[in-house]
């Protein structure tokens, strides 16, 4: 048991994960934005399976955290929302990805022992 604790010494604890990103819906949004330069509301809705209201609130939360940039425009009479991952958002997502991989690898190693 003691050796398991020592093994996990350099592994960041799961409780330290970025909670803005860790929420499944926001994680799904960020994954799709991570591989694209930008995407609109309809694309994100179709890919994440979220409802319009839900997606709006999660995008607003990500925007408040500075992780995404939202552009609102009109095409004729139809409002169009385009979302883009910001530099800090990209870094935060990469840190999150690294942290969770390390944490899971650490816990997997401990479990095997």
């Amino acid at each position, binding site marked *: 048991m003691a050796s398991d604790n020592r093994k996990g010494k350099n592994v960041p604890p799961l409780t330290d994960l970025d909670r803005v990103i860790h929420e499944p819906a926001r994680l799904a949004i960020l994954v799709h934005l991570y*591989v*694209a*330069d930008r995407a*609109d*509301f309809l694309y994100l*809705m179709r*890919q994440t399976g979220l409802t*319009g209201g839900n997606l709006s609130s999660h995008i607003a939360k990500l925007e408040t955290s500075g992780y995404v940039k939202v552009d609102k425009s009109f095409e004729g009479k139809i*409002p169009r929302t385009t979302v883009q991952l910001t530099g800090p958002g990209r870094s935060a997502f990469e840190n999150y990805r690294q942290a969770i991989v390390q944490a899971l690898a650490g816990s997997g190693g401990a479990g095997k022992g």
Partner: protein
Amino acid sequence: MARSESLGEFRTFDRIAYRNRVMDGLTEAAVALFLLAVALVLPHGVFAAVVCLFPIALIPVLRRARKRWADPRIGYVEPMADKPREILPGIGLFMLVLLAAAIVLALILRGAGGSYSVAQRLHAWEPALAGFGVAGGMWYTASRSGLRRFYAYAVVSGLLGLALAAGSDLGFVAGRRTGLQWYLLAMGLLLAAGGAIVFSRFLRRHPVAHLEENGGQR
């Protein structure tokens, strides 16, 4: 390594984004327009200058068409562009290999007999060069999007180019049009037909999303 290939476990999501961008059939329609336009101007002397202008003119047309027909149905996404610095060496190498293969082939054929010069042989093998050039682009699109029809276009383009080149070299392709023109016309018409079928199926399968379902926005 190209940016899109360095995504690791996110490769699937990149594929989803790229597929979303090329699934509507407008991409092959644009390539078809380009090939047919080149086939039409090829016999006239303004070839190089005009050909350079075609892609520049086609990009905004393609963008507008997508905005009009595709984006309201499946949403808009701009997949990450591969940096030119990362992909140009690969494209350059591919074209160099093609050119070298064509020269070697021309020399072999010259050795096999006939009174043609190397320049004439290369001229005859232009359809193969064009065919493999288009095939390279189609193969890239297929591998990044996972859409199998682009593999089919790539194979057909390569085979058609080879067949017309061999036909030109052996004197089967004669008359007013050159082998390259026949290639451009045939591939252009094939892509136009393919694009039209895919586009009409796309419109049927993906109706315009109702704004009420999207929280009143797009």
